């Protein structure tokens, strides 16, 4: 018996085919995990199955849910399934809750209006469910007062309140650290009853292992491999899947530290940082030497980026000194941003931007070509704008841009958090190369302890301060996203 079966789903944007015919089945009690390259069509596939594609795209194929068969192009037909048959768990849970309504009512309204409970009963049910998820106090709070994990749980409760047995979750752990990731996985599995279904899209192999069930690997809109999750992960058949699994930091070999330490490029002594009236870093002392990689870890919102800003002189420390090695140009200190798209001028072609930098630093134009080759980038990319190249490519272009300024130090702020494992390995590998060959000092920020362990010569772990960092960080996200 199948809960859902989708046959020959394609998605087109005009003439361009974004998802090739893909078929899949969901069975009761057995989760399905979809892995794949960035931009391979995972989200579009899920959206086509749920009838939630953006209006500009066209889908074909058939979807059978429960007793009825629907045509993928007939979006209106899916309406009746939402909430009652399919619980849709969106990618960004804190953006999915109405910012102006308290959490409780957002769950209760589905009980009342979808499941048809009377108002008082709906309120009680919502309160019970939230309490069961460990959220007794959250019911009366607004979304911006919830942490990411809390918002995630509220969204799950709200999505399922209508009584749907089938849960579809698109990257539910994006941007979360390991502990929080496991919480979410546990929650999704707990919601999966014997007769229910679960479909999870992710880049994260650890999450895939936790979920189990069956696995499907996508690339360029087509299925590369399917099978039981544990089987595929332990014995991948397709080459791409093998690469993917091999690219997991878990399987990286540890970097060999250069024998002799270079000279100090940057020193921070007794550094104390505060932001928004909150002490983030207290009396930190560190030294960055040429050719060495310093790992910086710590939970979300603990001040990793802020520390970088202070080291680069973008943020004035409350106390302490930062000394740069004598004789280095101000532009010898560069940064790689967490989100590379945001770090390029939106409207300018990439080539133009790079040429501007080369001209400013009196670098010969051939230098760009040389670096492109070294970073294994196609020169055709230069005629595009930042939004039109992939994340991995852009991160490498960012590195290229920084290299044009002849840096001695690079602060790499979570440079791979949005990338799939293969692209992630490429970028990190490049950084390590640069440290070795060019003698760069690098500070690498990541929330993945394994990655840090494999690459870095030494580690600086920022502790989580007491207080409500969690909440604050979420509210920041909300504000930038909505405000």
């Amino acid at each position, binding site marked *: 018996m199948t809960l859902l079966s989708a046959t020959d789903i394609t998605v087109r944007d005009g003439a361009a085919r974004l998802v090739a015919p893909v078929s899949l089945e969901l069975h009761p009690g057995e989760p399905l995990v979809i892995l794949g390259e960035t931009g391979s069509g995972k989200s579009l596939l899920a959206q086509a199955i*749920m009838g*939630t594609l953006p209006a500009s795209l066209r889908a074909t194929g058939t979807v059978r849910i429960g007793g009825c068969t629907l045509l993928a192009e007939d979006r209106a037909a899916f*309406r009746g399934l*939402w*909430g*009652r048959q*399919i*619980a*849709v768990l*969106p990618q*960004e849970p804190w*953006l*999915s*809750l*109405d*910012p*102006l*309504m308290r959490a409780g009512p957002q769950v209760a*309204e*589905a009980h009342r*209006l*979808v499941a048809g409970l009377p108002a008082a009963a709906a309120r009680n049910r919502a309160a019970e469910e939230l309490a069961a998820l460990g959220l007794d106090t959250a019911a009366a709070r*607004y979304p*911006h007062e919830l942490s990411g994990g809390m918002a995630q749980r509220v*969204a799950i409760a*709200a*999505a399922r*309140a*209508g009584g*749907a047995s089938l849960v579809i979750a698109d990257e539910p752990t994006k941007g979360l650290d390991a502990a929080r990731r496991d919480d979410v996985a546990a929650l999704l599995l707990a919601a999966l009853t014997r007769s229910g279904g679960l479909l999870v899209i992710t880049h994260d192999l650890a999450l895939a292992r936790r979920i189990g069930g069956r696995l499907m690997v996508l690339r360029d809109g087509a299925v590369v491999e399917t099978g039981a999750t544990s089987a595929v992960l332990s014995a991948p058949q397709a080459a791409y899947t093998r690469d993917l699994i091999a690219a997991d930091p878990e399987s990286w070999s540890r970097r060999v530290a250069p024998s002799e330490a270079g000279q100090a490029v940057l020193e921070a002594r007794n550094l104390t940082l505060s932001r928004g009236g909150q002490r983030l870093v207290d009396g930190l002392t560190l030294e960055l030497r040429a050719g060495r990689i310093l790992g910086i870890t710590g939970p979300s919102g603990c001040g990793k980026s802020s520390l970088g800003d202070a080291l680069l002189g973008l943020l004035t420390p409350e106390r302490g000194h930062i000394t740069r090695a004598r004789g280095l140009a101000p532009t010898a200190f560069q940064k790689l941003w967490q989100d590379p798209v945001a770090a390029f001028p939106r409207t300018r072609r990439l080539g133009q931007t790079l040429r501007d930098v080369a001209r400013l630093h009196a670098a010969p134009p051939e230098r760009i070509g040389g670096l492109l080759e070294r970073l294994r980038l196609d020169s055709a990319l230069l005629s595009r704008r930042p939004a039109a190249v992939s994340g991995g490519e852009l991160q490498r272009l960012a590195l290229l841009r920084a290299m044009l300024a002849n840096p001695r130090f690079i602060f790499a702020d979570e440079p791979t958090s949005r990338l799939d494992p293969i692209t992630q390995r490429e970028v990190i590998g490049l950084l390590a190369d640069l440290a070795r060959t060019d003698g760069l000092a690098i500070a690498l920020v990541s929330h993945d302890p394994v990655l840090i362990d494999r690459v870095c010569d030494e580690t600086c772990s920022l502790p989580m301060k007491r207080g409500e960092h969690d909440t604050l960080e979420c*509210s920041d996200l*909300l*504000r930038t996203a*909505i*405000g």
Partner: protein
Amino acid sequence: MTILVSRLVQALVVALLVGAATFAMMRSLPGDAAWRIAAGRYGYDNVNAAAAEAVRAELGLDGPWLGAFLQWMGDLFRLDFGVSLVSGQPVIAEIGHQLGASLWLALAAVGLSLVIGPPLGILAGLRPGSLFDRTLLVVSTALKAVPQFLMALILILVLSVQLGWLPAAGYGQPRHFILPAFALALGLAAVNARIARDAMAGVVAMPFYDFAQWKGLSRAQVLWRHGLRNVSVPLLTYLGLQFVLLVEGVVVIESIVGWPGIGHALVHAVFARDVPMVQGTALMLGLGFVMVNALIDLLAARIDPRGAR
């Protein structure tokens, strides 16, 4: 709390600005104030050198600059606006009378415009690019292109002369409000329909709006429970700004329907060089704007707890 403090600072600066600007500008106006005041008082048939001299002697208009300015600001901060140069009545009493008339008119107009504009705008915003959306764009542009005096005239012609439902002009009874308020409201509605439309289109594009539907709520339920709530915040913020636009309309409408309000008084005061009246009126309008916006800030903060801006 910070809302109120920042608005308080704004109010203070408004007062200073009004004080200094009215004083400086009215002093630097071309021509002679005594003459203008005399014309305002005695009318064009009777203004002559003797009348201007009498005014000059009575008001001591030839005093030195600085002393007059300091005296002026001092009085201003004691909320003593002095006496209207034209009518001889205390400014505060005149304004008190007129402000009431204008305020009710303005409120009636805003109320009416809210009944007309946002519902249409929301309907259009739900389906951006639809025929209804485009029609609304054309109609609201047309409403903006008809000057308010013409709008008032058309309404009088239809509602009073042809249908005989409403009085053409006058002041005093509730029925006198309807026509001028309507004339003002149509212009405002044209604009706030656009605002509501854009806000609604924005809200519809938000992930939470989709998510609410994915929970299983019907379109109407989502609109009612999530759409309106989220549209109301930008609409409310815009409403605060609208009071400034309203002043322009009020001036025109008041002079066409014979409404004893502050806009009408303002025009007369500027012409007659009635400095205390101009200052009092401008200050009242400015402070009124600040107050309305403080209220709106508070209200918006209640609806939207994420903190102002």
